[in-house]
């Protein structure tokens, strides 16, 4: 047991813990105003965050010690369970609607997001399926198509909520895993073109989508509507400058920037800690991705390799999309920044995923699964 922990990638673990720490501090700084105004308690969100972090650390630990071989065997039931949750969330009385999207299932005082569960389950499933069928992956119909079929079903279920951000992250993650396992680059390029074609068709069918999708390119065209969040995010980053306004000195947190402690926490970091703080966060994610892919290359078998690729991609891509949204290079999609955004199922399952990745880093003594 102890040998295993000694082999856990300390750099990766350190990176995760630093990100988590920055998250705790920034969550408090970002949410104090809201907590005070809505609950007359500046620590309202901070307290909840601490609970979620504690739960997250527990989940990470469990994921770290869990037997990956066993997990591999339980992949199908786990996926099935996640799919059931995904269906349940659409059933009135069980699913909760927040901001027009039915994404949560209430469990006593907590509520969980089935889409977070399915992300992990999907990575597990793809890792197992692709490692078992790595020889077929060169063939489009035998290898790529079944993966896409499963992805299509899951994405369709998520889009019912609707949750475009999660769909994107998952599709990109599967795409990465297919690339990693050796899918034909021409196939993948074709898929990419097909995706673009579909987007083009959707735009031709209803030109208003063009404006909606590309609103982020010129947020000032509709400053109080489509462009609002992007503008407010830029108005946080800009004044931050090189060194930031200083911890706790954000102006945009005074209800100017919505979701400032969740989806737009990166803007808060840019405002209070400046270009230096924001760049540090980007570099920490670079470190995370580097150590994650390094784990994939060092993993003793293709399942573990693919699992590492999948988990690294899942968290890394979500982080990149989130930061892209905040800096205004991507349209607003509504996903959190892993480790940093305020708590919830998102943090819990991100840490579970991180725990699994750490588990893989320590798995080089395993002789196959």
């Amino acid at each position: 047991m102890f040998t295993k922990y000694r082999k856990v990638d300390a750099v990766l673990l350190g990176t995760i813990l630093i990100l988590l720490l920055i998250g705790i501090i920034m969550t408090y700084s970002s949410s104090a105003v809201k907590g005070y105004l809505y609950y007359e308690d500046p620590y309202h969100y901070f307290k909840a965050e601490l609970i979620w972090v504690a739960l997250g650390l527990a989940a990470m630990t469990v994921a770290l010690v869990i037997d990956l071989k066993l997990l591999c065997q339980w992949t199908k039931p786990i996926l099935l369970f996640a799919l059931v949750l995904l269906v349940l969330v659409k059933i009135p009385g069980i699913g909760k609607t927040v901001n027009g999207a039915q994404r949560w299932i209430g469990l006593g005082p907590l509520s969980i997001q089935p889409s977070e569960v399915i992300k992990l389950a999907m990575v597990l499933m793809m890792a197992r399926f692709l490692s078992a069928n790595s020889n077929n992956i060169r063939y489009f119909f035998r290898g790529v198509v079944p993966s896409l079929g499963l992805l299509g079903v899951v994405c369709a279920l998520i889009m019912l909520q609707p949750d475009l951000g999660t769909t994107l992250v998952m599709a990109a993650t599967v795409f990465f895993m297919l690339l990693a396992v050796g899918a034909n680059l021409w196939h993948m390029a074709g898929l990419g073109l097909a995706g673009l074609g579909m987007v083009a068709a959707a735009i031709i069918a209803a030109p208003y989508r063009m404006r909606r999708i590309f609103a982020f390119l010129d947020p000032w065209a509709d400053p109080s509507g489509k462009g609002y969040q992007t503008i407010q995010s830029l108005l946080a980053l800009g004044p931050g400058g090189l060194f930031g306004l200083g911890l706790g000195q954000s102006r945009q947190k005074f209800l100017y920037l919505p979701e400032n402690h969740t989806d737009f926490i990166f803007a808060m970091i840019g405002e209070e800690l400046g270009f230096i703080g924001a760049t540090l966060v980007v570099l920490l994610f670079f470190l995370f991705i580097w150590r994650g892919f390094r784990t994939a290359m060092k993993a003793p078998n293709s399942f573990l390799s693919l699992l590492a690729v999948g988990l690294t991609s899942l968290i890394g891509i979500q982080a990149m999309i989130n930061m892209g949204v905040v800096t205004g290079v991507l349209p607003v999609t509504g996903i959190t920044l892993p480790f940093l955004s305020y708590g919830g199922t998102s943090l819990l399952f991100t840490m579970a995923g991180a725990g699994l990745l750490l588990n893989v880093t320590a798995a080089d003594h395993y002789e196959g699964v």
Partner: protein
Amino acid sequence: MVQQLKMRKRVVLLFGMCSIFLFVLIIRLGLVQLREGPFLKNLADEEHFRGVPVAPKRGNIEDCNGNVLAMSVSTETAYAVPAEVKKSGRQEEIAMKLAQILDMNKADVLERITKRTSLEYVKKKISAETAAKIKTANLPGIGIVEDSSRFYPNGPLAAHVLGFTGIDSQGLEGIEFSRDKELTGIPGSILTEYGANGIVIPGAEHDFIQPVQGNTIKLTIDKNIQAFAERELAKLMAGQGVNMEGKAPKSASILVMEPSTGRMLAIASAPTFDPNNYQTSNPAARRNIAIQNGYEPGSTFKIITLAASLEEKVIKTTESFTDPGYAIVLGKKIRCWKSGGHGTQTMVQVVENSCNPGFIEMGQRLGIDRFYKYLTAFGFGKKTGIEMSGEAKGILANKKRATALDLATMSIGQTNNVTPIQLLTAVSAVANGGTLMKPQLVQEITSPAGEVLVPFKEEAGGRVIHEDTAKLAREILESVVTNGTGRRSFLPGYRVAGKTGTAQKVGNGVYIQGEYVASFIAFAPANNPRLAILAVVDGVPFYGGVVAAPVVQSVMLDSLKYLGVKPDLNAPLAPGKPMYGVEFPPVKQAAVVPSVLGYTPAEAEAALKKAGFKVAIEGKGSYVVDQIPHGDAKVEQGSTVLLYLGSEAGKNTLAPWFEEDDPDVDAIESLAPRIPISMNPVLGD
């Protein structure tokens, strides 16, 4: 193993892709935070900072000598912070107390103090005592702030020129309106950072932007000359006008211009109002009739006909003209005012006598084309461009449809509709040597520190007639005052040139019998005019020479003396017989005229004869009520003193100095079936 190797390559590829994206992200962060940072910070500040405006002090309006005509004084304003009022939970009680102190309706007060705004004023311009009462009442959410309000220290003086301001000190009329921007200044503000919910950010930054005080507008108006004009108007409106027999006109206006520059020294209209309390005044009284109303000028317009004829050399001063008592144009007989006509006269006498057939002859010699050329050149039918809103353009008869009859009537000042300011501007061109000057109201604009920002700039509209022509016209017009129909504006010791005018008013498309627009226009000194004055008295049963000339005479005399214009030794000392073309004989020996006011005619005659003066008597009555020259005047020994008799000493009840036939009225009456274009006020566009 091949598989593993391939996967490693692919993972490196994926890592490369991610690295590129993260690199792009850092570049983007740099662009947003470092390059665009200052720009975005400005935008963010605009969003976060909200200002409590600090009103600038509105600039003064002064006359040409720096006398303050309009100024800003501090007043108190009661305001409410509705959020605090509601928080106290005592809104009903607060509203009740406030309503009591401010003498307002309780419901109105309640509505104001609970309005959904951050700050709402309850009442502006309250007195210091009321403000003190509110302060001592110590009502939650209610406060007092210093505000400024407009004060016109001279009351109604120059009200139509100055205009007035509204509750927020914004200019609504007159100079207050036209120069609102310069007077207002730029409001400052106290800026504070607010959250999106409208609450001040804890530890917020503050910024104070100083207001830029309004500039001072110095007018060309001279407070004293304006006062002379308004004094005469007040007399007229009170029914105390000279020769008015206790009657008051409907309205009247007096305009004074400096012909050489176009500077307006006075623009006075009656009825008038007090801009301090403009709300309580009759809106009709706020109308600036000197600028906004057109009228048929009558014989005053003959100056234009004369100037054009002299310029085109269609007449000679020595030429003789025989007036048979009428002129026949297109089968229509236009009579001269004097039954039987003036007989044979020189052209100078034609003007002195305001002989209608003579002026019709001038018009005919000019012809329609040339006549219209001068109408346009003298600025009729278009705005003078004086800085007053609502200026009327006047109406000229359509040139394409004008007949010989139109030409004839236009030559004697009928048919066309002009504004008082147009006529004065045109006649000033004759007075100043032939250049049409744009009438000016603003002398200069100075900053609060006294620095001149915009200096005076006269605007010449171009030469209308030659200098020689203008000089000749002036001399002839001087003769009108000395010897002709303008004798009532004669000023001993000053050379005055002028012309009477009487126009019949039109109602429902026909001339109203017995109601006239009496006017007189004059400039002095005739050889180098300092002042041009036009008086228009509307709605009187009297003629221009009778009621308007004394008004002009009075304003002219006071203004000349005030301006320090010395009497001219060459000027005639009493109205007399023709002097045109002859040097005025120098004063051989001066004598002081004794005052005989209040004497019986016999006593007066004895006293004057004893002093060596000749005596002429006007009117009937047992006492002398007026005399020309006045008592103590130094005049030539042996000249004639004109005595006006009245029934009671000290009261102007002498019989009007009516000509048997008035030149203007007669001409009009002879045209009675002919309806002019309009006598109604014409608004500019």
